[in-house]
């Protein structure tokens, strides 16, 4: 939906993923959208250079989030929220559905 504005479908995907799930890493995002990892990595790198997202390393994984210091964050979030509202409910649910509550290791789901 934002491809004409952002110039890249993968940039839109990255932003929507990070907005919906608060954080994510390249392989996870690529897997979710069944797309090429290098394309997602490229968009993550560009968005980070633009200060729109930021990253930190957890173990060996570089985890990205929307940058709370980005001056247009509120406006960006509103835009992404609106884009999400245009998604079919099942698509939206897939994107937003991820367990965030802590769960002890080994405990059955």
């Amino acid at each position, binding site marked *: 939906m934002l491809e004409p504005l952002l110039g890249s479908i993968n940039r839109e995907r990255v932003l929507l993923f990070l907005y919906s799930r608060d954080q994510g890493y390249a392989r996870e995002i690529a897997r979710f959208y069944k797309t090429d990892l290098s394309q997602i990595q490229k968009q993550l790198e560009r968005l980070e250079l*633009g200060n729109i997202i930021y990253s930190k390393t957890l173990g060996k994984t570089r985890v990205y989030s929307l940058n709370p210091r980005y*001056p247009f964050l509120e406006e960006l979030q509103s835009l992404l929220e609106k884009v999400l509202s245009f998604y079919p409910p099942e698509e939206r649910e897939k994107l937003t559905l991820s367990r965030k509550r802590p769960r002890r290791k080994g405990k059955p789901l």
Partner: protein
Amino acid sequence: MKHIKEMSLGELAAYVCTHLEKNGIHCVLTGGACVSIYTENRYESFDLDFVENVTSKRKHIIKVLSKIGFKEYNKYFKHDDTKYFIDFPAGPLAIGREPVRKPDVINFETGKLVLLSPTDSVKDRLAAYYHWNDKQCLDQAVLITETNNVDIDEIKRWSEREGKLSEFDSIKEKLLHKNKHL
């Protein structure tokens, strides 16, 4: 004029800032370099982060900086005669959600440096503390308040705008305690 290898961080920043300005690149020094300058190097930074409001073409920046011996290296600019390096983080010039209204100017013998004011520098460091939980940046903010006049009310107003009033209240004493020695 001093040679680049003899320049302090502030002198070099002023030299570069003036050179950029003369060539139509209007930018403001931000980040850790401002802390270094305001704390007389009690916190040492090596990167000069210049932010532009209207982004210049990268090719133009490369050409202008090459005139004074800085070469692009992995998105940064380095010079053989100094340990300091230059970066141009993406604009706009803002601290959290707000634009920077009025940068300060300091004159060095090497040129004129446009940089964040001490109050904005504290806000800049607190943004990293509030949003990224960077405790080193809180220490830097406190260091600035030790030797500079900062507007605590303005910092409180800004913190509230960032949605971080309770965080401000919990560190206010640190900032005030240091500030009252002025």
